[in-house]
């Protein structure tokens, strides 16, 4: 196998390189010969295209993963219903599109400025709705348990219950078919890197996601509210004694997570306009959670890194082994990373992320 080309993102790429190391994979491949492809040529040919696509799709994972990681950092809680918050964001985006008069199936014929304005508007609505939904979820499913000093696993169960309930409400309301496609901005290549075309959508999504991440990171690390979040993450008892309002911090944490999920929803729907369906958050949620753990759960930068790595690695894996192995690649990568770094790649907690 030819050497993996050098990539700029050193720490991330090293992990991928080790996954793709032939010595690691040879036994697996030899054993699984009849059912699994092993197309190194395709991997090499598509390396840059896969990388770009992976980064763009990984940005969506990363934004959702931030929500998991924030809540985990503060409450040590896997918010299993976060994927449903994302779906609510997707529907909020979609319904805003409809509300703005766009029709399923047709391509809009509007000036680019108007389209961008509409996208921003839809994004804002999605962020507000998802943020509110996240806060509402916290009120209904988690706060009563906290009041009763419930064991940690109880939260997991109400999360599962809430997940079922939200999905079913959406299904009953909007039906079980995906919503008709509304696409405001078709992708078109802007320039190429090493022969891999980069589309306008990919540029928007990668840049906007990074911007969202920077804002969230600055918010948590620099603002007064963010200090509260970190204080509660580090030591809830002391933070409360120091005058931090824990309930308020928790509410804000959920709100921020929801807002980021709302942004992710917009980007997702821009990439995959067919994505508005009641159960569409499930796999994405699992992947995003995987990304959060991969990077080091409770760590904002870890979530970003984990999301991008997962997005890219999935694409490499798909090219190498075939499309049906995509999800296997994601989970095997997770297991391998945790084997060598038991607390994820960056592995710090939210509280100590700036130590």
């Amino acid at each position, binding site marked *: 196998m030819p050497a993996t080309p050098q990539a700029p993102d050193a720490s991330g790429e090293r992990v991928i390189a080790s996954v793709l190391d032939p010595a690691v994979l040879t036994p697996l491949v030899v054993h699984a010969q009849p059912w699994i492809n092993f197309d190194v040529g395709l991997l090499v040919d598509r390396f840059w295209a896969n990388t770009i696509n992976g980064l763009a799709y990984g940005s969506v994972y990363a934004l959702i993963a931030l929500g998991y990681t924030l809540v985990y950092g503060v409450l040590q809680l896997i918010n299993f219903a976060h994927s449903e918050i994302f779906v609510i964001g997707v529907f909020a985006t979609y319904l805003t599109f409809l509300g703005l008069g766009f029709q399923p199936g047709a391509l809009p014929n509007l000036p680019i400025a108007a389209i961008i304005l509409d996208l921003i508007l839809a994004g804002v609505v999605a962020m507000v709705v998802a943020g509110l939904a996240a806060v509402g979820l916290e009120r209904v499913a988690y706060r009563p348990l906290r009041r009763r000093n419930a064991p940690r696993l109880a939260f997991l169960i109400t999360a599962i219950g809430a997940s079922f309930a939200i999905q079913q409400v959406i299904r009953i309301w909007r*039906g079980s078919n995906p919503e008709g496609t509304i696409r405001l901005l078709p992708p078109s290549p802007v320039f190429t890197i090493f022969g891999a075309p980069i589309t306008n959508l990919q540029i928007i999504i990668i840049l906007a996601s990074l911007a969202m991440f920077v804002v969230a990171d600055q918010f948590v690390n620099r603002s007064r509210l963010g200090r509260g979040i970190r204080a509660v993450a580090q030591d809830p008892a002391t933070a409360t004694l120091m005058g931090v309002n824990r309930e308020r911090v928790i509410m804000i944490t959920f709100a921020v997570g929801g807002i980021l999920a709302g942004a992710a929803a917009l980007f997702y729907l821009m990439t995959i306009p067919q994505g508005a369906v009641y159960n569409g958050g499930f796999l994405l949620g699992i992947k995003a959670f995987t990304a959060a753990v991969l990077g080091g759960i409770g760590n904002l930068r870890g979530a970003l890194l984990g999301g991008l790595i997962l997005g890219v690695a999935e694409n490499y894996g798909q090219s190498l082994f075939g499309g049906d192995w995509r999800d296997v690649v994601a989970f095997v990568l997770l297991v391998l990373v945790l084997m060598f770094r038991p607390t994820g790649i960056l592995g710090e907690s939210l509280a100590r992320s700036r130590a």
Partner: protein
Amino acid sequence: MIRRRLAAAGALAAAVALVLSGCANQGGGQQQGGGPAAGAPSQPSDAALPAGNGQGRCAPGTSIGYAGTIAGQNAALGIAIVNAAQLAVDQHNAANPNCQVTLVRADTGGTPDTAVGPTTGLINNPAVLGIVGLPFSGESRAMGPALNAAGLVNITPSATNPGLTQNGWTNFFRGLGNDAVQGPAVAGYIQNRLNAANVCVIKDDSDYGIGLAGTVTQALGPRASCQIDVKTNQREFSAIIGQVQQANPQAIFYAGYYQEAAPLIQQLRDAGVQTTFIGPDGVKDEQYVVNAAGSADGTLLSCPCVPQEGFTDFSNAYRQAFNVPPQTYSAESYDVTTILLKGIDQGAADRAALLNYVRGYQGQGLTKRFQWGPTGELTSTPVWMYKVQGNQIVTDTQIG
């Protein structure tokens, strides 16, 4: 304070979006409906309809069952079927005052294990004389022996796996052509009409996709030069597109459903792959055209079904009842429900009688002519090719 203001603003935005969406949705729906495309065969004049002659008589409480998914995963397919069955029953009951048939719904969840309880519930309900379903091959396989033992006639409107009729079940009938009929016809079309020497066969992981891809690949022989797998519910196909670009085929056959086909074709076209794209009956759905948002044009769609665009009465009634256009297998479900209702109208008062009636049935339906051979396969299953033209699915030609 700020919090309250934010909440109010959010609620307002949501409410506005809701109201607007309601309007827009209706508007969109009407626009999609459209009229029959020019040149499409109209509704067969001799098609059996559920209303019958209005003279049906049956015992009060007589029921037929729907066994299939209603709320579980992949519920969309099941709902398209149960809705059409309900429509047929409602039309029948409205026209036949002396025969009021109940449709008993059993939600199987679409998976073999969850199917056992509800389906057994139907079997043990003596009022149920026949069953529409089960939609999926997996659950059909799991429940087939029990339904057969109960002598309960069972017409599936959607399960296409060829193996289902090779179990020796005497109660099982298939309301559409199986994969073994469609596959070779499509392969022949690709070979002879498209003259494609180099074909990519993409399949999803459903029983349907795997079975169909198998028959097509076999019939294509060495021309099926690349095989690509996708997953149900997959929406992002960039790596798949890379595979296609590398193989550079002259035609692509997609074995699966429209939910995945729509984003796939869109992303293929976005990436500049203009290769002829062929999908099967699982893709032949208005939703495919809508969801591909302009990228579907030129797609060829094969289907073991007589052209359906002319069934305006059915389509309109369905749309009126359920606010959505009929979807994949709705018409098949409507047809097979009609057959069961006709049997009841004509005096089939127990399971054995209804089973006998279906076994000997011959008649035109909306989708095709229904007559079954000894194994439960239709004796003749025409396969037609359709294509997407100007955001409409229009009839191309009969291919088998």
